């Protein structure tokens, strides 16, 4: 997918969906997005992140409105439970019937690196899953914020390029924001929405942080304005 000024921005198999610290072990379920696919993410007691299609196989209820109970995800509608392998382990309305073995939630491969949760869009696609998950580089030290931007990822990439950022890896751009060394990780949520996760290489002083945050807001404003003027 090309941006107007010729910067190639190919969506990678692995995308940074959430900062790792958003998921507290066996506590919360957070929504994520991956090229139009809604995700429900949660962390097991053992620490492993689960990235599931955000839809219960029973009646299509979003799993993100469910809750974590005894290291299982319990759907809000009928209380069906799914374990960390995505298999259904309880159907409370029929406690005496054997559980259908085929009944599982669709799950996506997950990797954690540099404080981020990466999810692969491959979901069992053998060829695509050969793409290796990202590994930690140690470059991300301080989490600044995530920005939800109402613009296609190509537009965000274009603007980053215009701000002097360079693409250095899968969905990864490096540059400076308000004088601070920054890394921006892009998640193509849908064809019209992008999440930009902004990290700094070290913790700034309070005033400097304030400037960085202001720069982020301006960045988003500019990208969104350009995207909407093009579409109107």
């Amino acid at each position, binding site marked *: 997918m090309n941006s107007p000024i010729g910067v190639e921005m190919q969506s990678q198999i692995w995308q940074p969906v959430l900062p790792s610290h958003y998921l507290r072990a066996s506590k919360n379920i957070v929504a994520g997005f991956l090229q139009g696919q809604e995700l429900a993410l949660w962390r097991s007691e053992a620490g492993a992140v689960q990235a599931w299609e955000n839809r219960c196989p029973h009646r299509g209820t979003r799993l993100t409105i469910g809750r974590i109970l005894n290291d299982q995800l319990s759907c809000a509608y009928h209380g069906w439970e799914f374990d960390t392998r995505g298999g259904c382990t309880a159907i409370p309305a029929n406690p005496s019937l054997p559980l*259908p073995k085929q009944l599982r939630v669709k799950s996506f491969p997950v990797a954690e690196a540099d404080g981020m949760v990466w999810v692969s869009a491959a979901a069992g696609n053998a060829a695509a899953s050969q793409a290796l998950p990202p590994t930690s580089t140690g470059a991300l030290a301080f989490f600044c914020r995530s920005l939800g931007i109402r613009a296609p990822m190509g537009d965000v990439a274009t603007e980053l390029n215009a701000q002097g950022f360079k693409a250095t890896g899968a969905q990864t751009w490096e540059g400076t924001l308000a004088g601070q060394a920054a890394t921006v990780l892009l998640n193509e949520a849908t064809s019209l929405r992008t999440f930009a996760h902004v990290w700094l290489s070290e913790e700034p002083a309070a005033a400097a942080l304030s400037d960085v945050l202001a720069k982020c807001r301006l960045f988003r404003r500019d990208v969104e304005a350009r995207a909407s003027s093009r579409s109107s």
Partner: protein
Amino acid sequence: MSATRPFVVRRKWMTTPDVAAFELAPADDLAVPEIEPGAHVEFMIERAGQPPLVRHYSLCNAPGERDAFVFGIKLEPQSRGGSSWIHTLETGQTVKLGAVRNLFPLSQSARRHLLLAGGIGITPVLAMAQALEANSAEYQLHYFVRGEEHVAFRERLERAQAQGRLHVHTGLDAAGVRAVLADLLDGPAAGEHAYCCGPGFFMDTVDEVAQAKHWPEEGLHFERFQAAPVAADAIDDAFEVELSRSGTRCRVEVGQTIIQAMAAAGCEVITSCEQGVCGTCLTNVISGTPDHRDAYLSKAEREAGKLILPCVSRSKAPLLILDL
């Protein structure tokens, strides 16, 4: 559904401790048709929040009794809902009645009539007795009850009693009933027909004894109230399944599903709920009789027998051939 006519409860009384008797008069004040002895009428039971039920009740009307329908209904603890509703029916209320039919008529060629009534089976038999009495025909009425207090419509039996034609047998156990019947059915007199109505086991006993005594079949008449009992065959059997396309045959053991047996034989069928509800494993039946255990197929589909859900259903016959 046939046309119905509204009737009003003119009178209701308990003729025995567990039999309610009713007189239902037409709401339009027109006469009821002349009722043949042995006839029954259709009741349309509409209840709030339930699908309508149709029930049949035998009429006790005497000849010429045309201002109301008369009948009695026993409160059955295991009823499918029909009789308990009737007991809340009060004087002045309206009910809908349908057709009057007779599946238990008196034989025109009979010259003697042996009437056998067990419990609530008295209702059609009583109509017969009243009709035979009015025609001065030869008959005997034998009425089997648990106790004297369970004799229903005693006032209508007075004539028969006075004539010595009524015989009430109280408190007999199965052996006692059989002994009395053995005596009564011991060789029919010329032109004698027997008519029997009562609980299933009572009629079965009459049937057995009559057959043992070589009572001619055309001279033996039953009015069976209840639907045939469900055969006690809930015990599963092993059977064979053949997959018509591959020719594979496999045996489905007791406790094993068709899907499991096929998988063991190397044929995988996609399933989903494994509870006979989702329709994913729906398969065509080439030949055989499916034993449906699912909650997916419609009544028509079940009866047609051309579809099966192999994750839960079984086979009634030893061989089931599937289109796989």
